[in-house]
């Protein structure tokens, strides 16, 4: 073996055997935003065998503050994130086999890859996709690492099918109106801290040191100087529909997914969350104004507009995204703003 990984193999937790195992593994990274670019860079440098990165977005200026793989050139070229990530990662380590997929991480797409994947690193920005990852993980017996951050706060939890509780045990349903980086802001160090937790877990799993895997959910707030760890064994729910005895993998089912439709002749995409929620329109109006949207509203809906996009959000979570027929683009805007 070359000198390339010498410092990592010197680390007793990994050693030459662990390094060899890491080099044979295939990791799927879902999302190539802040967490995705950091996670991908760490694993590329660490010498994972194969990396598949899926993302539906392109690089924008507001990404550069924290999405470490991207450059001003990528913004100017409006490169898809997965493509820009692959380009940069191949310069970092040409030995890694990297596949970039530009598109939505639907159950169908994830299932297509599930056969050959050893680990999934969650780097998405929404719970709908995380619940899909969670069901794929249970169905195909693939460990995954949840990671998320907003503002100065972040959390991570490692899910190993048959061993730990799953995300559906913890959440029971997709939480609506979680804060996102587009509404609550985000600082780079919070991203890096989540990446550190996720990739440390990844290296343990890839080198097959399962005893070292963190059994607790870790969360921190770098601005308020908190670091907490929550023991999770009691969270395992025998009746869970994703990992329990009578499992149904509900999030692989069309019924429980966000519904989208292009409204004919109106240049508009309608988005309806799977379960009607109750959005606090007043609070959201304030957040959207702060982001530079011109917002108007009444008790039933709010309409918001900036130079680029125009949409109407109803109190139950349904939205009309105007000025586009592109479902992926509309969904992306919705999930970035409303979780």
């Amino acid at each position, binding site marked *: 073996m070359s000198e390339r990984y010498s410092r990592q193999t010197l680390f007793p937790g990994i050693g030459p055997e662990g390094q060899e195992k890491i080099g044979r593994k295939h990791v799927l990274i879902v999302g190539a935003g802040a967490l995705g670019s950091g996670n991908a860079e760490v694993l590329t440098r660490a010498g994972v065998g194969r990396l598949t990165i899926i993302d539906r977005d392109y690089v924008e200026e507001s990404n550069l503050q924290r999405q470490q793989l991207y450059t001003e050139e990528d913004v100017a070229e409006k490169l898809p994130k997965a493509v820009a990530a692959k380009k940069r990662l191949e310069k970092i380590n040409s030995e890694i086999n990297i596949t970039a997929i530009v598109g939505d991480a639907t159950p169908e797409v994830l299932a297509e890859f599930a056969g050959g994947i050893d680990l999934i690193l*969650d780097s*998405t*920005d929404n719970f709908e996709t995380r619940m899909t990852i969670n069901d794929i993980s249970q169905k195909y017996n693939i460990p995954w690492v949840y990671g998320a*951050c907003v503002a100065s706060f972040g959390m991570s939890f490692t899910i190993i099918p048959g061993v730990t509780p799953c995300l559906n045990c913890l959440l029971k349903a997709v939480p609506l109106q979680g804060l996102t980086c587009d509404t609550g802001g985000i600082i780079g160090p919070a991203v890096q801290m989540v990446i550190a937790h996720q990739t440390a877990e990844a290296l343990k799993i890839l080198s097959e040191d399962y005893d070292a895997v963190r059994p607790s959910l870790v969360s921190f*707030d770098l601005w308020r100087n908190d670091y907490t*760890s929550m023991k999770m064994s009691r969270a395992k729910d025998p009746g869970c529909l994703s990992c329990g005895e009578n499992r149904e993998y509900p999030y692989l089912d069309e019924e429980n997914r966000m519904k989208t439709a292009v409204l004919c002749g109106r240049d508009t995409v309608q988005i309806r969350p799977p379960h009607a929620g109750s959005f606090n329109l007043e609070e959201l109006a304030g957040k959207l104004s702060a982001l530079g949207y011109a917002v108007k509203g009444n008790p039933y809906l709010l309409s918001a507009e900036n130079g680029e996009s125009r949409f109407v959000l109803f109190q139950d979570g349904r939205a009309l995204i105007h000025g586009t027929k592109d479902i992926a683009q509309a969904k992306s805007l919705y999930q970035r703003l409303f979780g």
Partner: protein
Amino acid sequence: MNKVLFFAHLRDEAGAESVMMDAAGKTVAELKTLIAKKYGVTRLDTAMVAINEEFAPDADRIGDGDIIAFIPPVSGG
């Protein structure tokens, strides 16, 4: 007495890092309702709850002196 801790945006909503209250004998679900009313914290239904740093389901009963933490799942990435 019990110490109740709030994390992430719940802290902004509650207006405090933590509050002291007597929650002994109540279930986690009952405490959620009480806190939502008393401190105006919304979205508690989706927050994860830890009692003494261990995940606690809604039906768990709180004992005197237990430290309770509300940790909201976040989705950014």
